[in-house]
């Protein structure tokens, strides 16, 4: 037993390494649902478990609501959970293409997952309709005839925030975003449209939950406003801590941190914050009113930005199906390009690189009764296309 004291330290690194590997993959659970066969088969890969599940669930619910309302029973949707992991998403797309034989893929929320799945799927002749992620490579040099983004190019809402900040007279903004591709895109997008000076620029750690250090720097920087892109739980943490710090400078951000799903968790700390979005539940159009009412009736909660994007994606697909058969790829593509559907956000058209041309609004967080939600206060960018059209050879 003389070696016993050493047994533990030697065994430990291996076990810890295994622990960390397992932890990195925490998150789980395939959830599948499907309808009967015929017309078109859609494969939806989205995030239904783990930290970002709220987004995927909203996209799925919006999408399925539109399919249900269409009354078509020849649209079969296979839904799988990517657990927010690129490797899982790639496996699912292989499975859907090879064994499920889907015609159209959709559903991915995160840009890094889209970059892993989309190029392979479109190269195999499948159509991909993105209800959310719009990474710049897929809009520029990596654009593809079978790839359509129904939400936005990643930079769009940040550009709108930059335009709004300039218009509102902010001259010395402090900007921050997580240190990953969508974060650098976000700050680049903001700076593209913002005309003032920068009091400071910080890249935070992806998944960071404590912002005391950043807030102290904001306080000391002499800034007159703050722009941040911190999606999901990161934004909740930042806003609560920012409100508590008493810094009190006006805050501008893209809609992702002020989405219907997370506003209730932020609470009063978000009141009055200006955020930019291509959609809002109070947009005054018949299509949007019908969507908001039917979504609430179906699921018992207010729809989010993501739900509207899922709903629009399904309606785009249905509009193309009404005109052409999916087996005739050229006709089907032309039908998609026409974007002949009633979008919840009003006017909607595709630019030549298959990304939306649309208005982007400024919203303010308000309290209606007991519910925190957004109200439109103005237009930030009209008929905004994207900065990558010329890089795309289509």
């Amino acid at each position, binding site marked *: 037993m003389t070696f016993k004291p050493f047994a533990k330290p030697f065994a430990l690194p291996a076990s810890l390494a295994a622990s960390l590997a397992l932890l990195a993959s925490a998150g789980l659970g395939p959830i599948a649902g499907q309808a009967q066969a015929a017309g078109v088969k859609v494969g939806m890969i989205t995030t239904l478990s783990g930290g970002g599940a*709220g987004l995927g669930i909203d996209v799925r619910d919006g999408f399925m609501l539109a399919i249900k309302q269409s009354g078509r029973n020849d649209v079969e949707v296979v839904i799988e959970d990517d657990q927010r992991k690129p490797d899982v998403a790639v496996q699912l797309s292989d499975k859907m293409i090879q064994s499920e034989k889907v015609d159209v893929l959709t559903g991915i929320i995160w840009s890094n997952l889209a970059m892993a799945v989309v190029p392979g799927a479109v190269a195999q002749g499948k159509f991909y309709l993105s209800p959310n992620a719009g990474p710049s490579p897929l809009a520029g040099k990596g654009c593809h005839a079978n790839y359509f983004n129904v939400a936005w190019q990643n930079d769009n809402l940040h550009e709108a925030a930059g335009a709004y900040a300039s218009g509102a007279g902010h001259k010395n903004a402090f900007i921050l975003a997580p240190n990953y591709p969508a974060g650098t895109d976000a700050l680049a997008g903001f700076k593209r449209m913002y005309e003032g000076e920068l009091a400071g620029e910080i890249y935070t750690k992806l998944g960071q939950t404590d912002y005391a250090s950043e807030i*102290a720097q904001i306080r*000391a920087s002499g800034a007159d406003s703050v722009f941040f892109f911190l999606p999901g739980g990161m934004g909740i943490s930042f806003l609560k801590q920012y409100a508590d710090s008493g810094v009190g400078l006006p805050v501008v951000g893209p809609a992702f941190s002020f989405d219907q799903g997370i506003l209730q968790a932020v609470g009063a700390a978000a009141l009055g914050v200006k955020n930019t979005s291509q959609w809002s539940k109070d947009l005054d159009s018949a299509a949007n009113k019908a969507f908001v009412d039917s979504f609430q009736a179906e699921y018992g909660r207010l729809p989010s930005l993501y739900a509207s994007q899922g709903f629009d994606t399904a309606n785009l697909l249905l509009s193309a199906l009404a005109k052409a058969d999916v087996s005739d790829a050229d006709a089907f593509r032309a039908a998609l390009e026409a974007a002949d559907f009633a979008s919840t956000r009003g006017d909607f058209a595709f630019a030549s690189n298959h990304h939306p041309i649309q208005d982007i609004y400024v919203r303010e967080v308000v309290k209606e009764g007991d519910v925190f939600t957004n109200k439109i206060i103005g237009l930030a960018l009209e008929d905004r296309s994207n900065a990558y059209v010329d890089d795309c050879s289509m």
Partner: protein
Amino acid sequence: MSLVLFIEQVLNGLQFGVMLFLMAAGLTLVFGVMGLINLAHGSLYMVGAFAAAATAAATGSFVLALIASLVFAAFAGVLIEVLVIRRLYERDHLDQVLATFALILIFSEGTRWLFGSFPLFLDKPDWLSGTVGLPFGIVYSRYRLAMILVGLAVAVGLFWMIAKTRIGIRIRAGENDREMIAALGVNISLLHTFVFALGAALAGFAGALIGAIQSVQVGMGEPVLILAFVVIVIGGIGSIKGAFVGALLVGLTDTLGRFLLPVLFRLAMEPSAANAVGASLASMSIYLLMAGVLLFRPRGLFASQ
């Protein structure tokens, strides 16, 4: 960069450190006394935060919410110790890792089933909101200051318990020689359950305190758990003192690294490149610290055995 900003960042580092200590204390005790790697420790942190959020929503009282976090996390700890963990003490570390990883999945999906996928709301009480003025013109968050004080108080309490009380003597004896104290008539299985429940309660308490300024959501425990492992490896596994020093080191390194490294690189590079490089290096800083410590003290700063 002013002195006031620097001191504020040091306070932020301390606050982060004492919260890490609450997590790491349970982890290191459980490892020291039972020889168990408990990956589900992060789930107990989450249980505490959810219990607090649910209680705060039902009663509106933050103090009751904190008590609920302690009670529910300790209860969850006792439950899994009796049902699962107890069977793992004699098995090797990989079996423990596998079983406690399964517990993470069960806790995560169970919580999602009970509370849904959207984050919950938990806020600090009004009497802890806002800022306080400290000497030298420092303005600091009242809640964070309270967290530092509470964390230090818990640390003092733990040291006192381990050093001065009968149960503390048994815990230390259990770390040194399990068979011997069992042979001396100490109910070792009850001691194990107690240590596990204590660690669970501390983790749940940390979850509730931190949940009030961050987001209460499924999977919130795992990133903290990884940091807690770093802390106990630096401090020396099994040592409460090591966990305390390690937690403060990690808290200060992380906070000051994020703050100072970009400033440092800006001296030599253009600002946006400096920010990106500084941020990247800052996110590695605690792992570099761990590697550095292990280079000179392979078993951590205060290894007990």
